[in-house]
């Protein structure tokens, strides 16, 4: 499908058309925090909001019923939890949050067993990604293979001032663009050149810094002092994991009694002290620096080893929300420097192959 142009004054009309297709979610400022909430037709969301809470929970729900059970005359009956999932649109999701779902796919739809409910939601949800014209202070997406103008999701739009450039990236994206038939014009060559220019500018707007490779991190793994210093002020409160768009650790809990009830998948955090506590008392990560190390290694090393992509999108929420101002960018810079100190030179650090 050809790239389109939508005049800014026509945005509301398109939004209203989308509301007839399914539930529309957009950035909304609440009393204390901003998040993606359902918006009704006729409402114009404020797309300049970079939400405190990522839209992760709309697809990978915080508490998801995974089965229901009853013990009846015939014994134990186990039923999968079924509910009708309606079509949804997340409008104005930023490239970082949008790309985060690709990362969640790698984790949750892995070859061993696909996360059923997540995959159904994912199929039924259309992501309309809005490029960041003004990246934030704590953004570092370009360091982790992203960009404020990253083309991810099902539809990509960028604000050109008086108009939006709209590009469908998938069949479902095309479908929702066609819903706005009549509101769009084809993009001109000048439009496309302008967009390309903006893409380049925006990429440069988020400064990159050298990040450690998998090999680097493996090398400093055993440097206890490094990790202890890093984790010195960390409280293990787990805020970072809850607000991180790619974190997906969970636990399984039953609600009910032996006769009937439900089984849920509930978000958990690797930062909590009893995350790895086994029956019998053995806890391999009882020290909090070990848990911080695990989180960093998982995002920046193990995830690459297992799935080929970095497990972080550089949204910076962890930096903004951490009560003791732990800054993951400092960690990445320190880790890379520690390794260059041992490896040699800083030249070409920016373009090193991640997996080296």
């Amino acid at each position, binding site marked *: 499908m050809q790239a389109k142009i939508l005049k800014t004054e026509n945005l509301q009309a398109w939004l209203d058309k989308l509301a007839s297709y399914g539930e529309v979610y957009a950035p909304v400022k609440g009393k204390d925090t901003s998040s993606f909430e359902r918006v009704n037709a006729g409402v114009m969301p404020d797309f300049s909001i970079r939400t405190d809470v990522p839209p992760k929970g709309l697809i990978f729900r915080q508490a998801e019923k*995974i*089965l229901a*059970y009853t*013990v009846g005359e015939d*014994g*134990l*009956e*186990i039923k*999968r*939890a079924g509910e009708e999932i309606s079509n949804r649109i997340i409008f104005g999701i930023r490239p970082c949050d949008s790309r985060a779902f690709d990362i969640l796919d790698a*984790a*949750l739809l*892995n070859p*061993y*067993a*696909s*996360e*059923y*409910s997540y*995959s*159904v939601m994912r199929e039924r949800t259309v992501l309309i990604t809005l490029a960041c014209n003004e990246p934030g202070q704590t953004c570092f997406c370009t360091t982790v293979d992203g960009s404020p103008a990253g083309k991810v999701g099902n539809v990509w739009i960028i604000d050109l001032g008086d108009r939006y450039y709209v590009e469908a990236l998938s069949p479902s994206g095309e479908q929702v663009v066609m819903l706005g038939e009549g509101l769009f014009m084809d993009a001109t060559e000048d439009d496309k050149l302008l967009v390309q220019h903006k893409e380049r500018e925006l990429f440069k707007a988020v400064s990159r810094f050298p990040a450690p490779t998998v090999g680097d991190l*493996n090398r400093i*793994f*055993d440097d206890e002092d490094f990790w202890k210093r890093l984790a010195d002020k960390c409280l293990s409160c787990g805020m970072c994991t809850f607000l991180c768009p790619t974190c*997906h*650790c*969970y*636990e*399984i*809990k*039953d609600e*009910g*009694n*032996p*006769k*009937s*009830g439900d*089984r849920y*998948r509930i978000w*958990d955090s*690797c930062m909590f002290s009893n*995350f*790895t*506590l*086994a*029956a*019998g008392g*053995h806890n*391999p990560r009882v020290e909090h620096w070990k848990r911080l190390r*695990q989180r960093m*290694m*998982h995002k920046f*090393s*193990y995830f690459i*080893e*297992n799935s080929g992509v970095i497990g972080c999108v550089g949204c910076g929420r962890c930096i903004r929300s951490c009560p003791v101002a732990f800054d993951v960018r400092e960690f990445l810079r320190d880790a890379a420097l520690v390794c260059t100190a041992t490896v040699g030179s800083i030249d070409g650090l920016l373009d090193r192959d991640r997996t080296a």
Partner: protein
Amino acid sequence: MKNPYIAHPAIITNIRQETAETKTYTLEFTKQKRGLVFIPGQFNMISLLGFGEGPFSITSSPLRKEIFEHTIRLVGSLTGQINRLNVGDIVGIRGPYGSGWPVGLAKNKDLLIIAGGVGLAPLRGLIDMAIEQRNGFGEVEIMYGSRKPENLIFTSDYDNWRSAPNIRLFLTVDEVPKGIEWPYGQGVVTNLLKFSKINPANALAFICGPEIMMRFIVRSLLIREFAEKNIFVSMERRMECGMAKCGRCMIGPKYVCTDGPVFSYPEVKALPHNLLAASL
């Protein structure tokens, strides 16, 4: 798409008391008259609906088609509930998960099986299999130890194991209570290795037990010129999903629930934690 969390109902048809806190449960699926297709070393997630789920090794031989068994020790709240179950009770089963002992590699090789405490559980299926298919394997040496004689599991199986040709079974405990007759060894399991007569060049070693025990055993095996690639261990971590998603069981980039629980020693060495470092 299948919901991977669905647990299949299975009924307990027999319970054998192994020690004061450990029982072996024999199970059959209720919906289909069949057992489980698995490799020794793999585990199931056993559900007590309404209570919780936990990972447990499958302890029967895969050659037993109609049933499968689990040997469960009482250590916490879920196992406490399981300990109260009776014959006829129903639990939920999903699995099998994880990697098993490399039975294919073991064909016609001698097997050196070393276990401590309840670590013998994931090896029992392999032992029973080697005994039933006696011609498929070479000599089998089993070295097993526990804290006291009363903590040894599968004692009612020993005579059966001993009556098969060319099986050697060596036992040791840390302490022998007064008044108990104990003609076997006393001390750590590592001490039993001196009885081994097999040729490491044509043998595989399978080890399961507390990590510190495994570390010393690996060290001794390497000194005896066992090749690293012929040594296999079973690691244990808290597991919840069994499918490499919930993140709990990771050791470095590996998931104990899918890359393990059985790992070759070179795989363990590649993990960042130096877990079984057997520096010589």
